[in-house]
């Protein structure tokens, strides 16, 4: 089991980001990853990303521009259910590419 840190961003760092984080935890567990997720709002995402060394950042709300220091993946598929499997595959691919 490998530990990964994920930053999940939505409008108020509450409802949607938590849902996305929970889904990722569940799906990545099947892939052999133990996810530690942090929820954030768009305005605090950049400073948290720079301070926190995350493996991947997922977001359902647009992010401000900046150097996040981690791959960023659009988690919008989790809200409609369309293309959701592709989203999980993308996250896994990014983690593997980073040697995780």
């Amino acid at each position: 089991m490998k530990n990964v840190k994920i930053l999940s961003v939505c409008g108020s760092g509450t409802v949607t980001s938590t849902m996305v984080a929970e889904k990722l935890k569940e799906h990545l567990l099947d892939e052999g990853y133990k996810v530690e997720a942090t929820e954030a709002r768009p305005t605090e995402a950049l400073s948290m990303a720079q301070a926190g060394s995350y493996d991947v950042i997922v977001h359902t709300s647009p992010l401000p521009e900046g150097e996040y220091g981690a791959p960023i993946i659009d988690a919008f598929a989790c809200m409609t259910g369309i293309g959701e499997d592709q989203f999980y595959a993308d996250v896994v691919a990014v983690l593997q590419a980073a040697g995780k």
Partner: protein
Amino acid sequence: MIDGILMTMKAIIDNFSSAIIVPIIIFFIALIFRVPPKKAFLSMMNAAVALMGFTLLIGAFTPIISPMIMSMSETMSGITGVALSTFDVGWQATAVVAFATNAGMIYLGLGILLQTVLFLVKWTNIFQPSDLWNNYSYIVWGAMVIYATDNFLLGIACMVLLNLYSLLISELIAKRWSAYYGYPHCTIIAMHNVEPAVFAVLIDPVLNLFRLDKVNLNPKAIEKKIGVFGEPMVIGLFIGMLIGIIGSIGHLDSLKTWGQIFYVAVATCTIMALFPKVAGVFAQAFAPITDAAKKIMGDGKGRDWYIAVNDAVGYGESATLTSGLLLIPIMVFIATILPGNIVLPVVDLLAIPYMVQGLVSVYKGNMAKIIVAGAIWFSLGLLMCSQTASLFTQVAVSAGFAIPAGAALITSFNILGKPMLGLVFLAFLSQNPFYIGISVAIYAVAYAAFRFKRGAIEDYMEKMANRNTAVAEE
């Protein structure tokens, strides 16, 4: 036999608090949607923890903030004549209050059923069960009708009609929202955040008379300047200090007073930071049911249809966030001088970037228009909050939230500040068949007009949106 069942149910509801009953109902709804029992059980626990969490937080916070609010209110009424005796606890707490009422328990199930059927029979092109969470927006009003009139069916009818209204408004802006925010086949459904769009469309010609369509504000540049002042805790600190200082204006020379002022300020920061966390726990209870409900949707082939998504997806967009943040000080200022207002917006100040999304999509990101139209409509919203604050506070108390007697009233600037759909609620509250009839008739006419003139209406909105030279879309 049926009497016996009803008596038993009533006895259960009377003896168990909502933090126990609501989770159990969520557990059974999850099972009905074939959520695995383990997940259903976790949903139940999340709901229970969040409900209890809010009860504990509100119970602890109210005694701290109440005396200061009352004292501030007295001071202010001496200066501007506007007494702000009502604290805005925000949408998170309001959602929890709503789901904890009888109306909430019923609409959890009924809402999914109604929304699914409306989509399947093509009454609407919007698949709503994918945003289950926002059903509290109808429930709040229904719960107040039931509490005040003791008429269960009337409350349910009110929720259904509000649901129909919000579906219609969502459909009206679906094309624009989807295009502006760049999410194909998606729109927002939350009634409290689509309602301003109707006003946006109606007032647009007037705003153009003032040449606002030619004003071009750059959201990105302004966003950078706002910086740390847009953070919830910082806003909490400012508002808390404001309440504290005005509340103790006569004795600012003592150290004891400043101790109290900072105590209130830190408590307000804490609420700003912790409410969203508790709401996050509550949201986890809904995730498995929402997922299961999406499976009903099918592939929607051969239809021009939209999936309802949570408005979180639009929050961080530049024009949305920036105009939302700029409206924060504007709304606080207006609240202190608006005659008839008794509400100090606090927690929901952070919700303004949700509230403007209807305006943003109609005006294609023209910030000058968003701010002007927003300030007008949200001010009317404050008056609707003021009108309903006392009733809502009673509903919260009856749902098991410990708000001490004689304390300040509570409201939600975002959820209850609905000038137009609040009128529908007032019609039901009056129990007057004539007013109720009018609110139904207006819906029927609007629905028919939209069904028959859809193309023309959408073309008009597109044309008006494109008049704005301030284009934030990249």
